[in-house]
Each structure stands twice: as C-alpha cells, then as structure tokens.
C-alpha cells in the first residue's frame, strides 16, 4: 500500500518546481487571459534571461560550496564601463568584449582572494561587493547614463524569430549545462563541492578549478549586466543592487544546494529564474495591489522550497537502503 502511494507521489515531488511553475502559470492564466499568450511568455523569458545567466554563474560557485555576493556590483561596474565607452563613441565591437573583460577581472579578484589568500568566499565577495559598487559609483560619479540606441537594439533584435537576449542566455545555459554534465571540469566541480580535501588528494588542481568558477561567475554577471542594459538602455546608480540574492534564490529554487555538490543549471536554475519572473510578470498583468508583490513572491518561493525539502525528506525516508528484499 505504501508502495503505490510512493509511486504516485514521487514523480510529483521529483518535479516539484516544474509543477509549481505550471500551477503558477495556470493560476495567472486563469485570472487573466492575457497572461498565457505567446507574446507575453516570450517577454517573460526575455525578462528572465538576465537572472538566468547570473543564476548560472552563481550555480557554479554554489556547487563548489562557495558563494558570490559581488554579482550585483560586477553587473554595475560592467554596465558603467559600457556606458562610459559607448558614450565615448566606442563601437559595440569594442564595448562588448570590454564588459566581459571587466566581469572576468572582478571574478579573478574574487578568485585571488578565495583561492590564493584563503579568505572565506562569503567575506571575500562581500568585500568586492563594496569595492565594486564604490568603484562603479566613482566611474559614473553617481550620475545616470543613457546609452545609445545601438544597445537597445541588442535587446529587441531577433535571430530567426528568437529575441537576441534569449539566444544569448540560451547559449550560456546550454554551454554551462554541457560543461557541468559532460566535461571532466564539470564533474570535478561537483567533486570539489562534495569533499574538497579528497578532491585535492585525488590529484585535482582544486585552486585552478575554484578560480575558474569565480571567474566564470564574474563573466556571467557581466553578460547578465549586458542583457539588463540592452532592455533598459540606461545605467542608474542602483543598477544591479541585490541581484546576487535573486541569482542565489533562482539557483536554490532550482534545487542547487548551498552546501555544495548538488544541483544544476538546467532545468534547475533556469526554472528558478523563470518562476521568479513569472510571479512579477503575472502580478503586473493582474494589476495587483503594489503592496502585495513582496508578500506573494515570498509566499511562492517559500512554497517551492518547502516542496523541495519535503521531497528530500520523503526520499530519505523511502530511499533508506534496504539491505535485503
């Protein structure tokens, strides 16, 4: 009797985030016919693309049992540099690589602090959060910048009918997914997150591995910055603030553990990012009371995490190794 119940429940719980996501979509769809239109869903994905990309970056870091709090600041610095260059007349072909470079340099700074100087990731990236934000504010002199239209076209142009931000984020996700699941480097990330000392003993270059992960996170933050920028067309002094929390929330919603070694970018983090965005999107479409936004968003995220932890609890309960049949 127990087994039949298991058989029904387990697939449900295994795809909890997916099901909750479907429920959220269905709920909003029922409340407003305008929600489930192709055009709106496409907007939704475009809006989620930036969160998805920075979520992918932080997923890598979380998998190694680290954390990156400097994502928002890196986005800001990258955007500030982009603004400076673009307003100075530099073409996109110069600006874009420069932004990516900025992201990687900041990622490398985190990597240096964490791997070479042995500072806790939390403190190291907290420090870069302040340094990065201050540096960006100095660059912009706390002024807002409006970017030339060439940037906006990045956000609206379509490639074979697919909006460019989706192509970019899709590309990042695909590459990240393949790296995590199909390459030695990806599997080694999981190993490092599971047992760092053992990974070292197994002959892995853990320092280089960790460094790569932080640099990758910086790179993703920069790409995420570009994606946001391409939709906004402007940089304000608050650009990117608190985005690290959204990114971490997306990753954790997608099933990535904060203690390392468990999780993935697809469907995990991507689903988390889209779920967060669909709540925001749906509430706007419903013209909900602005005061309700944080309450509803918090409630749905809580529910998703609750379902996930219930799943692990039941799995642990049911999956207790039977030593004989």
């Amino acid at each position, binding site marked *: 009797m127990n087994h039949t119940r298991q058989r029904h429940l387990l697939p449900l719980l295994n795809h909890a985030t997916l099901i909750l996501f479907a429920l959220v979509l269905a709920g909003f769809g029922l409340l407003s016919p305008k929600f489930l239109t192709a055009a709106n869903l496409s907007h939704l994905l475009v809006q989620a693309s930036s969160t998805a990309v920075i979520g992918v970056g932080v997923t890598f870091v979380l998998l190694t049992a680290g954390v990156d*709090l400097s994502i928002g600041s890196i986005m800001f610095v990258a955007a500030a540099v982009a603004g400076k260059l673009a307003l100075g007349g530099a073409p996109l072909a110069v600006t874009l690589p420069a932004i990516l470079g900025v992201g990687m340099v900041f990622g490398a700074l985190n990597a240096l*602090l964490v791997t070479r*100087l*042995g*500072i*806790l990731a*939390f*403190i*190291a990236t*907290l*420090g*870069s*959060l*302040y*340094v*990065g*934000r*201050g*540096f*960006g*504010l*100095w660059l912009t002199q*706390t002024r807002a910048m409006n970017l030339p239209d060439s940037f906006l076209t990045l956000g609206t142009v379509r490639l074979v009918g697919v909006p460019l931000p989706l192509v970019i984020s899709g590309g990042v996700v695909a590459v990240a997914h393949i790296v995590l699941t199909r390459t030695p480097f990806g599997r080694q990330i999981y190993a490092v997150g599971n047992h760092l*000392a053992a990974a070292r003993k197994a002959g892995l270059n853990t320092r280089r591995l960790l460094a790569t992960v932080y640099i990758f996170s910086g790179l993703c933050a920069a790409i995420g910055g570009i994606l946001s920028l391409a939709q906004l067309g402007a940089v304000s002094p608050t650009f990117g603030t608190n985005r690290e*929390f959204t990114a*971490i*929330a997306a990753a*954790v919603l997608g099933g990535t*553990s*904060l203690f390392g070694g468990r999780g993935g970018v697809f469907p995990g983090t991507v689903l988390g990012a889209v779920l967060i965005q669909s709540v925001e999107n749906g509430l706007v479409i419903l013209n909900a009371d602005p*005061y*309700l*936004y*944080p*309450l509803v*968003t*918090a*409630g749905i*995220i*809580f529910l998703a*995490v*609750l379902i996930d*932890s*219930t799943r*692990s*609890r039941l799995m642990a309960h049911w999956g207790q190794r039977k030593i004989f049949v």
Partner: protein
Amino acid sequence: MNVAADTGSPSGSSRLTAALRSEYLVLFLCAGLFGGLAPFTPGLASTDNFLGLFGNLAPLLLVALGQTLVLIVGGIDLSVTSIIALTSVVGALVMNRDTGWLAGSGAAAPVAIGVMLVLGGLIGAGNGLAVTKLRMPAFMVTLTALMFFSGLAIWLTQSKNIGNLPTAFTELGSRPALALPLAALIAGLVHLLLERSLYGRWLRACGFNARTAHVSGVPVEAVVIATYVASGVLAAAASVLYTGRLETGSPVLGQRILLDVIGATVLGGTSLFGGKGRVSWTFFGVLFLSLLDNALNLLGLSHFTIMMVKGGVILLAALLDTARTRWFNA
C-alpha cells in the same frame, strides 16, 4: 588533514601569544584603525563622538549577537532586518500618541516593548520550525521571511512612518545612559548563556555536528528553534533602540544593515559553518565596522570612496585573520 596526530600542545608562552592573537586580533585592528586615523580625523577622539559611536553600536551589537547564535548552530538568519522593521511599526502602532491602540495610556511604552519582543520571538520561532520540522534550508527560509515581513511592514503602514511616540519610549533609545548599559547587560547575558549554560554547550554541539549531538541525547530541534527565537528577540530589542532613537516607527528601518550584521559577526571570527563563535568576537567585529564607518564619516570622504575603503578594509581584516591562522596554526 590527519597529519599531526597527538602532537600535543605547544609550549606555554607560544600558546599565550597564539591565544592573544586569536582572541583579540580584531580588537587590535580597531586600536590600529583608531590610532592611525585619529590624528587626521577631526573629532574622532572626542567624548561626544565616543558616546555617539557606542550609541550606534549598541543596537547593531544586539542584532549581531542573535546572528552569532544562529551562525554557531550552523544556520543563518537573513530575516533580522525585516524583524526590526516589522516590530518597529507594530510597536509604534501600539503606542503612538495619535492613533495608537494604547494612545495616552501610561502602560503604552512597556506594553509596546513587550509586543515587539514577542513578535520578534514569534517570527524567529517560525523560522526555527521551518528549519527543523520542515527541514528547509535556513538561507531560503529566512530570505523569504525577509521579503515577506518587509513587505508586510510596508503594507501595514501603507508606506507611512508613525511618529509621535511616548517620551518614555524614545528616551530609551536616545539616551546613551540608558541604551548602553541595557545593551551591555544583554550582551553579558548572551555571553553567560553561551559560555556557561547547558544551552550554550548544546548549541555548539549542534553546530559542530548535529548527528553526534542527536545521538548524544541533545534535543537538537528544540535547541535550533530556541536559537532562532533568540535571534528574533534580539533583533526586536535592537528595533526598540533604533525606533526610540529615531522617535519613529518606520517600515524600512534597518533595511540596509543586513550585510553589516553578518559581516561584523564573521569578521569577528564566528564561523559560517557552525560551532565557533563568541560574544567578545562579535563585539570586536561590530566595534571594528562601526569605528570604520564613524571614521569615514568624520573624514568627510565622498560616498563612493567610503564604499571602496570599507570593502578594502573588510578584505584586509579577513586577510590578516587568514594569514594569522596559517602562520600560527599551520
């Protein structure tokens, strides 16, 4: 690494220096910061400034102490700032002299403080229950609590601040002569709890290894829940001081101090992985960050310079700490 089995303890004098270094490094950093900046910083060494500094530090210390307990048990509490905001407006709703439920009553201030502390404790209990009974990750539980209760605070007041609080209440936060001894008393109690009580022993054991603690008969779930409750109550106590000081119940009170709270705690030496932490360490961490902020304000540097210097100094302190651990405990 299993390298130095039974190598015994180092000799007496080197142990002394090692202990000095490990316990008081951050305090030395504070002294260094102060000594280094005082000549260039007008007013840094004045009595007024000290009173102000410790007035600022007191509520931050209370929140950070709650955070210390939670970090020792191996969790994290991101919801403290929302507890500060929510208790601030609820307390103000109870006692303000215009529309409060107890407007004009002499009992308004004590009742309001009681309500604030209980509310903080309840939110903490909610966090604790979700973490233990539902086995949800503390980071996410308290992150959603942060979003939810911040939103709730703003919704409750429809964005408005609630002023005109009873003088009895505002005195508490604004008079250093009241606030400082109170904070010191609470810190002392937490210290006793942590170092000298059964709860403190249990707390550390749960943080080091919850499975061992469970097998050894420690009521792990109760300890964890109690710890989140303590964090909630301490955040509410900080809210009493903050609210009193600003003479206003504000739904965005404390919104920006989260990273300072966790940063100061970890900087002091409390481990994010559980088990390790002390009241004195956290005090040093809070003192360091407050002193840094204070000095940077007094220097009159620009906004972004302050941010960069702050980030740099946090990194430097962490770096010293790491280097010290490597050099002396290698």
